[in-house]
């Protein structure tokens, strides 16, 4: 699935849920989709700055695709991380950089997330894009 298709599907899913409890339950359920986080990366080096709860993100490039491992100690944030991985994991750096941050709006997330939380989400996306830029530079 292209990442636009993933975003469209997430949007459909979220919009079909009538109330906030179901939407949160859905977001939390996305945490289960994350692969177990390799313990060796659970260090300060891989902490994402700007999040209220701790979020770890590790990325490498394999055959032209950015592969990431991510985790959070808080469940809702972990669900959001799961959502970001569905959108960004195993994509080319170009695909990652082409995804505009407008999808936060599209998913209705900014409505549900207070300022602090959406800026935490923005920090994660920024970190993912920084990795993409770094990998592109390596291969340029």
């Amino acid at each position: 699935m292209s990442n636009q298709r993933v975003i469209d599907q997430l949007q459909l899913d979220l919009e079909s849920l009538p109330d906030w409890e179901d939407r949160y339950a859905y977001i939390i359920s996305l945490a289960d989709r994350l692969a177990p986080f390799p313990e060796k990366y659970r260090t300060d080096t891989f902490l994402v700055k700007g999040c209220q709860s701790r979020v770890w993100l590790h990325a490498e490039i394999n055959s032209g695709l950015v592969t990431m491992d991510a985790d959070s100690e808080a469940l809702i944030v972990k669900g959001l991380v799961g959502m970001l991985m569905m959108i960004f994991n195993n994509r080319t750096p170009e695909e990652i950089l082409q995804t505009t941050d407008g999808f936060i709006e599209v998913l209705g997330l900014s409505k549900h997330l207070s300022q602090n939380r959406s800026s935490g989400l923005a920090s994660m996306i920024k970190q993912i894009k920084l990795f993409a830029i770094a990998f592109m530079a390596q291969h340029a």
Partner: protein
Amino acid sequence: MSDTQTIAPPFDIEVLRNEFPNISDTAASGRPIVYLDTAATAHKPLQVINRISEFYSKQNSNVHRGVHTLSAQATAYYEESRKEVQSFLHAESADEIVFTKGTTESVNLVAYTWGERNVGAGDEILLTEMEHHANIVPWQMLCERKSATIKIIPVLDNGELDMDAIDSLISEKTKIVAVTHVSNTLGTINDIATICDKARRHGIVSFVDGAQAVMHLEVDVQKIGCDFYAFSAHKLYGPTGVGILYGRKALLESMPPFMGGGAMIDTVTFQKTTYANAPGRFEAGTPNIAGIIGMAEAIRWFRKIDVNQLAAYEANCTSILLDTLRSIDNITVLGAAEHRIGIATFVADGAHAHDIGILLDEQGIAVRTGHHCTMPLLQRFGVQQTVRASLGAYSNQADVEAFGNALQKSLRMLQ
């Protein structure tokens, strides 16, 4: 301005709540919010909001400069505010009241002026394990400048200070003891009179952080016997950006200025400036005049309430809050001090504080999550992220019940 209080009407929570637009007029904010974050900042009663607005719309002028009527009037209000604070704290003289930006600035002022003069290499500063970062960091910075060290009065498992440890922590090198009156994380009310007495008998200066105390307890700096006492107006139902440093007159007079500028001088030439007496010496520049007048109004508003009736009312709400939390499985409340105010900080087994905060917010409940600027204290209790519910005079049983139900629901969602 006198100490004779008007006879307080019986404490009526509904009447009181109606004085707070942010509490009673929930339509204004779009949806009802149960505000359990008063320890961070309190809502303001209409009397305070109106006073500030009246100052700007009818009286605005600078203070201590100029003969014109408006300036003289503003100066009079400004100095009356100082007297209001003096009377509120039972200080001996209005000259002992310095206007600052808040508790944080008050601590820094003492650390930079008194500290700069009186603390040297090898000296010790005694703090407690439950201090807010505002009453830690300025002292650490002083210690770095002076090669002095910090000693810590430990906190016991029940959230009280280990009073027995104090004697052995005091040494000939101890220059100042800086203690919080009430813990912003545990709610514990400390026996500061005993601590200040110990300090005085050893010739040690005492500093009390009253940020969480003045809105719950009667504070009498002379009975406490402290040398310095600090608080912020915004936690006392007043405006942000204003606070108080009380200092014993002899001490304030012995201290060099903090910041230089207008209003803190006696005479200025390019060769030499002589400084005004305290408290003016510490009030450089145009002060937060409207804020200071608003703070005095908040004190007037607060003093209409009988503090004993208020304390009894708040104690009842606090015990309902604690019972609610203790009745929920997997919740641990930090500390269990006998003397406490309406603050409950807790962790839940298997649920992260941040998640709880998000789901409470979705249900219209405002609480604080995180470390509450007391990282050393949380470390002592072996936790990192916590949830804190804190009560104000306007909090009621319905608030606590709504919180309890919303918390149960949040925990179910996070299972």
